[in-house]
Every structure is written in structure tokens, then in C-alpha cells.
């Protein structure tokens, strides 16, 4: 627990609060402010859980970004999973997909109606399920960012090694760097700096953000998920902004290297190829997704079962799309906390444990 206790230490937190206040004062004395987008859903949740927003100077605006894999997965993906379940396929999934609304239903509702939906902690459980149920097909819901992709596609390697031909992936993988490009070219947004994800960066490396700094002149700081990590990251952004500088830096050096994780990157490169991907709320972002290469088609559920993932129907009036790209905050949505709560979510941001609306509802709502 030393990496937790050390990065939650109240005395150190107090010192960083003072430092942040000082840098905030320098920034506001210079007549400027800074808008920081925290890219990752785990940051969003940690910021809310540790009450960090309540510690920020007025000149610092922290908005939440598209980094919750569940939230950006289109309703049509859930529809496809439900359709497969309806054909008798065993659906294996991480838990937070269960309550995400599809166009008309959710996997939890499908399960209540008799579909076999298995919640897994480890993707490799999908292979075990396939071996335990040789007469059934098992489809793993393969969503996630770079953090999750390598462990999930190891299903393919494991399935091949154990001769499990009855397991496949319904892929909707997403990549972070193309999403940052899309946010920076969106005319609705005015982001000054990014608090870059911790675990995604452990895979892709902190160098992956250099282009953002060079091409767009925006600061990128990779930060860990503990409260002191986040405070240090934000403080550094404010300090740079006050000094009128931009930089790409890595606060989370105990885990993240400049080059990333070569083994995971190699595996991704071997099995996957880029595709244009639809992000719920944002639309299609070029080359922002990954799909299995043709050679691995037997493990691609879309090929195997002849189905395609359509965008699906989103609830009209739901602001998740704007929340996902940081142009609106959850409490600006008329559904927030009224028609849309974690128990009866309208949009995906209220469902996922990492969703921005869920974080606001859980930790920050005022009514």
C-alpha cells in the first residue's frame, strides 16, 4: 500500500494545496485562466472521490473528457451484443457494460429475460467459459482504450493455445491520441492543457503526447490516479500557464516511461489494425479505433456471426455527447439527477463507474 499511502498523505496534500494556490494567484494576477481537460474517466472519478475540484483556485477550470470506454461505446454496440445473446451466445463482459442503455434495452435487462451474460474480472475468463461450454459460443465484449486492449486481445492467443474455437471478440477498441486531435480541432472547445491518462500512458508512453504540444501548443501532463498525483499534475499545468509556457511532462514516472510498454504495443501491432471509429456523442474520428486483422477473422464476432455494429439510437435531449467532449458539464443537462440517475440512466455517462455524470452525481451533486 506504500504507493497509495504516500500519495494520499494529508501533510503533503496540504503543502501542494498551498503551492497550487500560489501558482493560481500568479496566473490570475496575470489576468489569465486555464481550462484543463482531464482525459481519462479514472481521473474524473478520482478527482470527484477525493474532492479535488473543491481545492482549485477560481482561475482553474477542470473539465472532463472522453476517456471512459463505456461512455463512448455507441448504443448500437449494446444492441449487437443483445442480438448475439438472443441467438444463444454466452456474452462475457466487464461489469460496467451491464447497465449501459442500448437503443431499446440493456444487457442487464437481457439477462433478466434469460440471456446468459457473464460478468468477468479477467478477460481470460472468456476462454475458460469457452472451454467449460464447448457446445456454446462465447463472445467477449472487447471495448476499452490502450490500457485494456492488450489484455483483452490476449484472449485470441490463449484461445488458440487451448484450441478453443468457440470464443470471439466483439471489438470496439478506442485510441486516445486521435481523440485529443479531434477535441483540439473542435470549434466548440477551448482547451488549454490536458491532464493525460495514467494507465493508457503506461502502454503508449508519454512521448505519444509530444505532437499535441508541438502542433497545437497545448501542455500535456501525464499524472497518476492518486490524489497527490492529480494535484501535482494540475499544479504543474497552472505553474506552466502562469509562466506562459507549454510542455509535455510525465508526473507518473513510477509507472509510465517515455516509450511505453513494448510488449503490449507489439501484441497490438501483431493482431490489430486501425479503423475509423464511432464515438458516442462525438461521431466518427478517423483511425481512432482498432479491429482484428483479417488473419484473425475467426476470432472476430462481427465476421463470425455476420453482424455489424451500427451507431444506434441515442436518447434525444441527452447531453452525454457534449459531456464526453467536455463542452458541457453534467449539471447543465436537464435530465441530470432527475430523469437520469445511476439507478435509471438515460445516457452512458451516468452508467459507467468512470462516467462523468456518475462522478458528479455520486460525489458532487448539490440537490
Amino acid at each position: 500500500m506504500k504507493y497509495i499511502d504516500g500519495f494520499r498523505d494529508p501533510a503533503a496534500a496540504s503543502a501542494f494545496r498551498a503551492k497550487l494556490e500560489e501558482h493560481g494567484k500568479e496566473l490570475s494576477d496575470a489576468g489569465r485562466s486555464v481550462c484543463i481537460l482531464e482525459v481519462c474517466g479514472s481521473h474524473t472519478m478520482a478527482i470527484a472521490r477525493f474532492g479535488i475540484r473543491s481545492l482549485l483556485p477560481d482561475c482553474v477550470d477542470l473539465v472532463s473528457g472522453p476517456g471512459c470506454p463505456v461512455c463512448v461505446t455507441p448504443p448500437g454496440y449494446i444492441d449487437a451484443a443483445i442480438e448475439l445473446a438472443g441467438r444463444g451466445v454466452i456474452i462475457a463482459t466487464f461489469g460496467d457494460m451491464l447497465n449501459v442503455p442500448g437503443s431499446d434495452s440493456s444487457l442487464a435487462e437481457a439477462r433478466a429475460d434469460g440471456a446468459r451474460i457473464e460478468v468477468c474480472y479477467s478477460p481470460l475468463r472468456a476462454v475458460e467459459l469457452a472451454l467449460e461450454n464447448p457446445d456454446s459460443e462465447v463472445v467477449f465484449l472487447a471495448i476499452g482504450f490502450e490500457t485494456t486492449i492488450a489484455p483483452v486481445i490476449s484472449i485470441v492467443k490463449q484461445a488458440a493455445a487451448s484450441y478453443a474455437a468457440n470464443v470471439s471478440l466483439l471489438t470496439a477498441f478506442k485510441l486516445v491520441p486521435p481523440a485529443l486531435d479531434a477535441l483540439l480541432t473542435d470549434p466548440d472547445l477551448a482547451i488549454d492543457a490536458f491532464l493525460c491518462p495514467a494507465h493508457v500512458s503506461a502502454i503508449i508512453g508519454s512521448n505519444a503526447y509530444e505532437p499535441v504540444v508541438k502542433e497545437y501548443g497545448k501542455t500535456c501532463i501525464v499524472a497518476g490516479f492518486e490524489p497527490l498525483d492529480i494535484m501535482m499534475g494540475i499544479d504543474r499545468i497552472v505553474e506552466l500557464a502562469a509562466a506562459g509556457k507549454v510542455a509535455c511532462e510525465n508526473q507518473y514516472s513510477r509507472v509510465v516511461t517515455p516509450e511505453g510498454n513494448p510488449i503490449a504495443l507489439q501484441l497490438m501491432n501483431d493482431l490489430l489494425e486501425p479503423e475509423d471509429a464511432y464515438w458516442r456523442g462525438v461521431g466518427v474520428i478517423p483511425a481512432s479505433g482498432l479491429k482484428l486483422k483479417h488473419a484473425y477473422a475467426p476470432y472476430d464476432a462481427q465476421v463470425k456471426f455476420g453482424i455489424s455494429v451500427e451507431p444506434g439510437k441515442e436518447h434525444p435531449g441527452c447531453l452525454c455527447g457534449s459531456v464526453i467532449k467536455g463542452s458541457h458539464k453534467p449539471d447543465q443537462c436537464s435530465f441530470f439527477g432527475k430523469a437520469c440517475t445511476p439507478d435509471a440512466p438515460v445516457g452512458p455517462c451516468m452508467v459507467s463507474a468512470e462516467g462523468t455524470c456518475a462522478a458528479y452525481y455520486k460525489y458532487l451533486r448539490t440537490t
Partner: protein
Amino acid sequence: MKKHNESIRLAHGGGGKLSRDLIEQEIISRLYAERESELPDAAALTLTDSDIVFTTDSFVVSPAFFPGGDIGELSIYGTVNDIAVSGATPKFLSLGLIIEEGFALSDLRKILDSIRRAADRCGVQVVTGDTKVVAAGQCDGIYINTAGIGIRIPGFDLSPERITKGDCVVVSGTIAEHGLAVMCARNGIAIEHGPQSDSGPVHTLVKAAADFGAEIRFMRDPTRGGLSSVLNEIISGKRSGILLHESRLPLSPAGRSASEMLGLDPLHVASEGRIVAICSHEVVDDLVACWSAVPEGEGSIRIGTVTDKAGTVVMETATGGTRLVDLPKGELLPRIC
């Protein structure tokens, strides 16, 4: 291959000889060894006091055996604790067993032995019961229902209505360990020195708290939904709120590790041998000292205070920020990353 006589068969619930054998040889011999008569369908009880409390609870925990406990003791402690925290001394319990065909007799024996030990520890008698066997697939191994009667302890005046600003929130030991132990067991997550269920009785703590009489405003065992669920329920619709201090929350190292790994907020996770109490500021130190002296209350600590922020439970985080303490969602789900 399992021998037939080593597991429960449908005929064990059929009312014939096998039923009788099961009840006499397995259940009565364990729970009523000292008695001549068999377990009656209805117990005739003599209560010296007319002021009683009555409760019932069902236990469906999966797996039935988990680190630190099993469904047997849980079914006793659960009902004993529900009676105790309403300010009463538990006395009599009923025991309803629903067993799945094929359930190992050796496991049933372990569960019955555990029931007996737990009942003895709490000073309660199981006075009536019922056993049913259902076909394979119709239940998950074994389900237990217990109902219980207790006698009210004079002096308590427990009601959330009596909570006022300045009162203190006390918890009788580390939180969340039962839920975390079960979650780990259920998902096959083996953590070295991992969480152990805190399953245990709290009636001795209630007895000790009786000395403080009306200064104790409210008591509850924070089971399903955890501490956050109890505290939110207490202040729902009231003019008071609650402020918790994260740095004072009692979590064992194993509990902390498991909740971080599973991505669960320990405030949302069940304990099965703890009390959360709200008492006046005047007696809080004495209550903590008095509970700390009882083995079941080792680790008692004041974790928060009652405020005038109507209807909200707020926590001051270790880093100095504040955040809401919300009700848990229905199903505790593992997160994706």
C-alpha cells in the same frame, strides 16, 4: 464419484424416513443435543416481559463458505444483530433451511455446527425450524431463513428523529470486510492475507451501550449497502446532515487493498459484525472507550459528526477536499480498468 448417502437428496425433504433421519441425526443432534424432544413445528415460549422485538432475515450468500465465516453463523449473527441494534437482548430464533438436492452432507454438517457455535456465543436458543429440499438448480446450494425474538432493554430511546447537530457518529471496528471477503471468494480472487469476513455478534456492544441510555440516539448494523446506506437513510428527509472524516475511517490493510483492487468504495460494502451508532457529544469518548474494552468492539472509533446541512452525508477527504457520500448502486460491479 459422490456417494448418494453423502449428499442431500430430494427424498430428504419428502417427509418420510429420510426426512426424519436428516432432522434427528443431523439437525437435532447438533442443535439440541441436550434435549429429549424433537424440534417442534411451533415453539411454546414463556416471556417475562411483554415488550419484545421480532425480526426475520434470509441468507443466500454465495459461496456458502467464505474467508472468515460461513452462511450458518451468518444466519445467526444477522438476526441476533438486527434484534440487538434495536435495543433488545436476543432470546429465541427459528431456523428455516432450504437445501438444494446434491448439497454435500459434510458441508451441511459444518454449517449446522457453525450455527450451534454462533447461537451459543450469543446466548440464544433455536426453538423451532423447518427443512425443505428443492431440486437441483432451484437454489444455490443452501438458503437459510432465521426469525428471532428479543426482549427490549430498558433505558434506550432509539430513533433517528432524536439526532441533532453536534451528535457524533461512532463505528465499532473496521468496515467492509465481510463484503470484500465474499466478493474475493465469489470472483476467485486470491489475495495473500486478504480480507476476512467480520461476521460476528454485536449484542455485547449493545448491552455495554445500555449504560448510556438516551444519550445513544440510534444504532444500526451496516450490512448490505454499507455505512453510506445506513447514514443516508438516517438523515433522509431530516434537517440534519452528517460529516465524515476519511482519515478516521477504520479499514484493515487487507480491506484497503481489496477495495482498491476491486474498485469498490468501502463505504458501500457490507460489514456483518459492526455497529454504527449516533450518540451525544457528551458521551462519545466514554462510548468509544467502553466498546474498545469489549473484544467485539476493538477498533471502535468516532468517524464523524452530525451537521445542520439537511439531508446530506459529506466526507472530508484525506487530501482536504470534500465530497458527497452517496448511496451505492444496486449491484456492486467490477470496473473495467
